[in-house]
């Protein structure tokens, strides 16, 4: 053993030849990397490059793809559905922040103070996350029954509020969609905050008490600053996630009524897979590239702006 490793060491100082590569375990290294190279090459790196190429091509599978420059992007600016989808997606993102950002934080802070059966609290909060989203959407569709006998409308009638149209009116459809999405996702945010809260060093609270801080003082001066990195990250991740929302509006309202819940990803889906005047892969990839560029730009600006604040 010692002689062979000595031989390897000597050969490394000489020129690298195929033989030294084989002796040094090169083939084994490559063999272990092979599944990743094949899978990522075919199903990740390849398609990413391809999507950039396709956005400047016209692809129809009958003739060879032709280079069309920025025609696909220009076609997007002429499509009246694009601004509607952008506005709806932004509306979804803002509502999802209002519903799903502060409340999980409050719940997590309260839960971190629970001294007994904290596991039960966590399990209850997380349970909706493991329900398949298709099931939760189709279940909530039932709850949103707009007739006076519908489940939510029955509950509202107990407190004297008349029946609401929920997903059947353009005014209330988007908040209804966001409510389901929040139900399905809020639990994991709570657990992430809770994990961050339990790793706050207890000495900090001791020190704050020595300095005379009360309960609110400790929350304001210790808990929230300690959570800042996690809060900053969950914010940007939520923006990236909600910018690509698809399932909830697609299954609950199919983008309607009157395109009031048509999101960007649904529009991409329509261009690529549901277009009555022919599938338009070029336009679909062009729109996804624009969305990705916007998110990249947004993240860069966001991290620049919050840099001083997060390393503090």
């Amino acid at each position, binding site marked *: 053993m010692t002689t062979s490793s000595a031989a390897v060491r000597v050969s490394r100082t000489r020129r690298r030849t195929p033989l030294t590569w084989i002796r040094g*375990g090169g083939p*084994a*290294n*490559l063999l*272990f*990397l092979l599944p*990743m190279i094949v*899978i*990522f090459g*075919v*199903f*990740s790196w390849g*398609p*990413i490059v*391809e*999507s950039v190429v*396709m956005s400047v091509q016209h692809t129809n599978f009958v003739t060879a793809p032709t280079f069309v420059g920025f025609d696909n992007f220009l076609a997007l600016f002429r499509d009246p559905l694009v601004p509607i989808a952008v506005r709806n997606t932004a509306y979804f993102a803002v509502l999802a922040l209002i519903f799903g950002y502060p409340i999980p934080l409050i719940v997590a*802070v*309260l839960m971190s103070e*629970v001294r007994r059966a904290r596991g*039960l*609290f966590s*399990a*209850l*909060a*997380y*349970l*909706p*996350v*493991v*329900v*398949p989203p*298709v*099931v*939760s959407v*189709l*279940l909530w569709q*039932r709850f949103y029954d707009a007739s006076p*006998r*519908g*489940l939510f409308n029955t509950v509202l009638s107990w407190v004297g509020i008349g029946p609401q149209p929920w997903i059947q009116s353009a005014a209330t459809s988007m908040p209804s969609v966001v409510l389901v999405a929040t139900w399905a996702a809020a*639990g994991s945010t709570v657990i*992430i905050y809770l*994990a961050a809260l339990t790793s706050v060093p*207890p000495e900090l609270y001791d020190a704050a008490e020595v300095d005379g801080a009360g*309960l609110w003082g*400790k*929350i304001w001066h210790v808990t929230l600053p300690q959570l800042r990195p996690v809060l900053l*990250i969950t914010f940007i991740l939520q923006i*990236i996630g909600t910018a690509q929302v698809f*399932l909830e509006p697609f*299954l609950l309202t199919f983008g309607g009524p009157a395109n009031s819940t048509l999101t*960007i990803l649904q529009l*991409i889906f329509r261009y*690529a897979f549901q277009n009555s005047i022919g599938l338009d*892969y070029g336009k679909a*990839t062009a729109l*996804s590239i624009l969305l*990705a560029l916007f998110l*990249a730009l947004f993240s860069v600006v966001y991290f620049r702006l919050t840099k001083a604040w997060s390393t503090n």
Partner: protein
Amino acid sequence: MTAATVRDRAVRRRALDQSDRGIASHSDWRRPGVWLGMSTVHLILLILLILWGVGPLLWLLKSAVTPTQDTLQAPLAVFPHGWDWSNVATAWNTVGIGVQFLNTIWVAVGSWFVQLLVATTAGYALAVLRPKYAPIFNGLVLATLFVPGVVLLVPLYLTVLHPPLIGHSLIDTFWAVWLPAGANAFNILLVTRFFNNLPREIFEAARTDGAGPFRLFWSIVLPMSRPILGVVSVFAIINAWKDYLWPRLVLTNPAVQPLSVRLPNIQSQTDLGVFLAALAISMIIPIVLFLVFQRLFLRSAGLGGAVKG
């Protein structure tokens, strides 16, 4: 449970109480005002969490065995005219949810296997074997974390439609879901980090004892990595069960569709009671998995935030 383990637990709990403190200190807790306020808030929180977390699911379980007319007329009444167990049998046999149930398991198991294979071999090569070019691949994998999934949708679909080398489409085969599932950079990140933190002296010792790279992988690294393999497995199986858009695109034949794809399609032609029974059947396995492996799930969820952060 023996007396010793009971005592053990009691000791451990007391030790935990002393070391573990939250925002409110132990002396805070001894003040009656704080104690009463906190307890009230926690009780309200518990009730709200029960309504939020279990309420809708209990309603679904109830309605799955309630006659359709009762669910329509009085959704909140509990069995006003008895129950209707035939919903479940009809959903499973006549509507044929049983087929999609098995498909879902098959999709989840295959995705899990491919993800574990790719993540462990790649993690081993990048973190333990560390060839000179490892940083390049590491960078390429991490870079995909910053590409939003939407960019992949159309070209990935075309790749599955015309895969390289194979010569025929993968549409309507499980491979169309299994193989792309393996291209998960998050898994590789988790596994590589874990392997990086394993003590390297053990690898050196094993090598000195004559273990080759394969032996080292199978007999040393994998057995030491059970915690992270559990986390990756939880993510893999639950995500496969939850996925909708991708399987909907590539699995168009009902005979191979998983539940998530089939359910919206049968909704309009299915009796409401039967449909709700089908929904209830669809959520049972993920919920049972969660209840059994609760700790692992919650640790994984917390870890997700830690890694992202």
